[in-house]
């Protein structure tokens, strides 16, 4: 390529380059800030985390820097009940919340897509849970679920006659934390699915109706298959994103009662605060490993269902 720009009236290094080379220079300049930011806060620190995960490093004791321990940290995890509890709760949280978000999100998307007079209102309202700070939602619900002063136990008692203790019971506390995640993120899923619903042609439904399909058969034989690529993409996104959840359980239950609602991220936070940097790094690697496994499954599903990303 020896094309030269017709408008080239300048001289100097840049002017002597071919058009193609100039494009490369422009591309590098344009990409530089983004690549530098990500390198500084993601790629480089991740390499350090990987390095630290094979070392014992507590700056309060190890004054000569990290000490190599091989797989020592990972063996220690095997004997740490909190790590195991946090991994199992994180998986329960992510699977339960994502499944409910997709199911309810599809229902809400239908509501947002239905033609009725208050539709504009429903589309404004649906953004609110997504937009409200997680800290506000977590603390607000923490108070609403309070076993003594909360309105949720009170409403359940007066309206449905259900007597339930939430945050002091390990299993119900798990349920409560997952419920808040569903409340907070279902609207986001619904908005994405709404965009998908709007892309399905009406003629498909009309043809199905002529052939005698009812609402349910239309849902299972038209809507869900047509939305499958979006459902998979959104589901994967929600799983990966929620695997790293921190602020919700941290503020709502503090990980308790006991360690029943401690997520992996909070365990990492606790170990980091105790200056066990090496151990925290190895738990981080486990978290990244889980994310990677989900990612690979996701990519396989993408290929299988011929989704273009």
């Amino acid at each position, binding site marked *: 390529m020896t094309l030269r720009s017709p*408008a080239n009236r300048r001289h100097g290094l840049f002017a002597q380059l071919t058009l193609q080379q100039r494009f*490369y220079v422009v591309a590098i300049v*344009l*990409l530089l800030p*983004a*690549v530098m*930011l*990500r390198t*500084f*806060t993601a*790629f480089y*620190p*991740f390499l*350090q*985390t990987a390095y630290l995960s094979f070392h014992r490093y507590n700056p309060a004791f190890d004054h000569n820097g990290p000490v190599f321990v091989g797989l020592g940290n990972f063996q220690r995890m095997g004997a740490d009940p909190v790590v195991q509890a946090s991994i199992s709760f994180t998986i329960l949280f992510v699977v339960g919340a994502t499944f409910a978000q997709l199911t309810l999100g599809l229902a809400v998307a239908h*509501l947002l897509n*239905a033609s*009725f007079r208050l539709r504009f209102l*429903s*589309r*404004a*309202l649906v953004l*609110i849970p997504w*937009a*409200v*700070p*997680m800290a*506000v*939602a977590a*603390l*607000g*619900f923490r*108070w*609403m679920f309070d076993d*003594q*002063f909360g*309105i949720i136990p*009170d409403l359940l008692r007066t309206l449905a006659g259900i007597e339930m203790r939430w945050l002091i019971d390990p299993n119900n506390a798990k349920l409560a934390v997952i419920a808040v995640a569903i*409340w907070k993120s279902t609207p*986001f899923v619904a*908005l*994405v699915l709404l965009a*998908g619903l709007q892309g399905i042609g009406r003629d498909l439904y009309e043809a199905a109706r002529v052939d005698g399909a009812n609402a349910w058969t239309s849902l299972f034989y038209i809507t869900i298959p047509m939305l499958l690529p979006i459902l998979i*993409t*959104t589901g994967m*996104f929600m799983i990966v994103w929620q*695997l*790293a959840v*921190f602020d919700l359980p941290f503020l709502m239950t*503090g990980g308790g009662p006991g360690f029943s609602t401690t997520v992996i*991220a909070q365990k*990492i936070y606790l170990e*980091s605060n105790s200056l066990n940097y090496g151990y925290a*790094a190895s738990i*981080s690697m486990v*978290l*990244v490993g889980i*994310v*990677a496994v989900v990612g690979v499954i996701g990519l396989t599903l993408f290929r299988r269902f011929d989704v273009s*990303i």
Partner: protein
Amino acid sequence: MSQQAVLHPQAPIHERPGYRAALLARYGESVLIYAAFAIFVIVIGLPFYFIFSSSITPSTELFNVPPTYWPSVPTLDNYLRMSQSIPFLTYFRNSLIFGIGSSAVSVIAAGMAAYALARIRFPGSNAIYLALILSVALPQIAVLVPMFQTFNTFRLVNTHHGLIIMMSSLMLPFTIITLVSFIKQVPAEIEEAAYIDGANTVQIITRVVLPLIRPALFTMFLINFIISWNELLYPLVFAHTVDTKTLSVGLTELTDPGSTYTKPWDMMSALSVFMIIPVLLIILFGQRMIISGLARGALK
């Protein structure tokens, strides 16, 4: 209906045959829709109602069994005490600097990168795009310790620009994905025409591309502002001074980590209301743009 009206002209409308079925056929669906809408409004609205009513309930009444649903004497006392227990205005300012700064930097850096990735073919462009979007999956917490050490070395802890650097970087992948998909929809012919007319690269970007993608940039600015306004982990770990702490950190400071009964829900709800108001305003103002921006980023 009209046929039945002819057959039974004198009968009251609800006694005519087929009335129920016709009613159900005609209004059944909308009754269902409005019932679903009512449930939707209650589920979404109840927490906000409760947070707001708590914020104007005197603290003596707030700790009642059964709980107070609406205060007998509404008061603004909680707001007053909240602003006295934490430096509310300073935190508010810090949140604004953090939110506006992070979203501005992320939109500018992402806009530049997205243009290069969407329009310029160069070796390694796919690899860079993949690395940038895959890094969205890297959990914040997994790199926190090394990041803290690096930021400490560069004296970026407890600074506004340090917080803005990490927050804007966190939002970059999603912003880039959204903007790349937007730029790819803009026909490249316009830019090619400008090249032929003798415009240089800088002119093309500022005079042709920028006006075309301005709505997308503005949408991403709003979305990123909301995300950074809500961010807790980064300010919690990297801001220890009054001059850098944000409102979300202030909310955790009000929380007494000790016993349940000492949690100052009166002040927390007041601060919560203040944290919700800006995002509510943005949603009222930019609802349509935000919905399209979120859907685009997640679909592509």
